C-alpha cells in the first residue's frame, strides 16, 4: 500500500492506494498520527484507489474518531468501492461515519462547516 496526502486549506485528503489490511494498517496509522500531531483535525479519506479493507484497516480510522470529535474535527469518506462499502455496512459503521459517493462532494462540506 501507498498513501497519497493532499493538504487542503481546511482539511487533509488521504488517498490509500491498494489494500489496507493487518499488514499495511500500521503505515496508515502512522500517517494519521502524524497528521493529528501536526494539528490537522479535518480528514477526507478518498477511497477511490482503495481496493480492499479489513477490520485492522478500519480500526485505524475508528481508533481516532473520539480524538477527532473531541478536537471538533471531522472525518469523512468518499469514493468507496462496493466491496469496501460492504465492510462498513457489515460493521454498522455506515451509520456512524459520513460517506460520500464522490470526492467532489467533499470540499463544500468543510467550507461550510
Amino acid at each position, binding site marked *: 500500500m501507498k498513501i497519497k496526502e493532499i493538504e487542503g486549506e481546511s482539511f487533509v485528503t488521504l488517498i490509500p492506494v491498494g*489494500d489496507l*489490511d*493487518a*499488514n499495511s*494498517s500500521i503505515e496508515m*496509522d502512522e500517517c494519521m498520527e502524524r497528521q493529528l500531531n501536526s494539528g490537522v483535525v479535518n480528514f477526507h479519506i478518498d477511497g477511490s484507489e482503495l481496493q*480492499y479493507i*479489513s*477490520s*485492522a484497516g*478500519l*480500526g*485505524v480510522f*475508528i*481508533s*481516532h*474518531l*473520539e*480524538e477527532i470529535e473531541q478536537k471538533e474535527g471531522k472525518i469523512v469518506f468518499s469514493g468507496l468501492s*462496493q*466491496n469496501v462499502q*460492504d*465492510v462498513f455496512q*457489515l*460493521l*454498522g*459503521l455506515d451509520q*456512524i461515519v459520513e460517506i460520500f459517493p464522490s470526492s467532489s462532494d467533499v470540499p463544500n462540506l468543510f467550507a461550510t462547516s
Partner: protein
Amino acid sequence: MKPSIQVTCTKANLSAIRHFVKEQLEAMAVAEKTAHQIVLAVDEACANCMIHSHQCDNCSVIEVELYRDTSTVYVEIRDSGKAFPMNEYRPREIEDIIRRRAKGGMGIFLINRIMDKIEIEEKAQFAVYRFAKRLNGQPLPPSQGIKTA
C-alpha cells in the same frame, strides 16, 4: 487435491492468501459480493492466527484449503498455533470500540456475520478452523464439475 495455499506466518503473506481465495472463488463461479465476504472472513481469521497465536514472524506455517459443492463454500484453515475458541468469543459493540479508541476487536464479529458455520478443532500439532458459507442457489461453473474431494 483440493486447491490450497500454505505460507509462513507473517502479515506480509495475508495478501497472497487473499488472492488465492479470490481467484479460486472466481474459478468456482461464486458471485463477486459473496466472494469478497469470504476473502474478508479468511483474511480476518488468518490475521488473528498470525498476530495472536504465534510468537514470531516466519517461524511457522498456516494453510488454507477451499472447495465448494452445489450449495456451499467450505474453508479449512490449519494453523500450527494453539486453537482459539473464536465461536465462544463475545465481540464488543462498535460504539464501545470507538469509545475505547481500540484499533481492533472487529475481526471475529465479521467472521460471524459472514459465515454460516464455524467449527474449531484442536489437533496435537495444529488447530483447524472450518467455515461454511451457503451460496443460496448460485450455479456451479459451466463445463467443469467441481470436485469436492
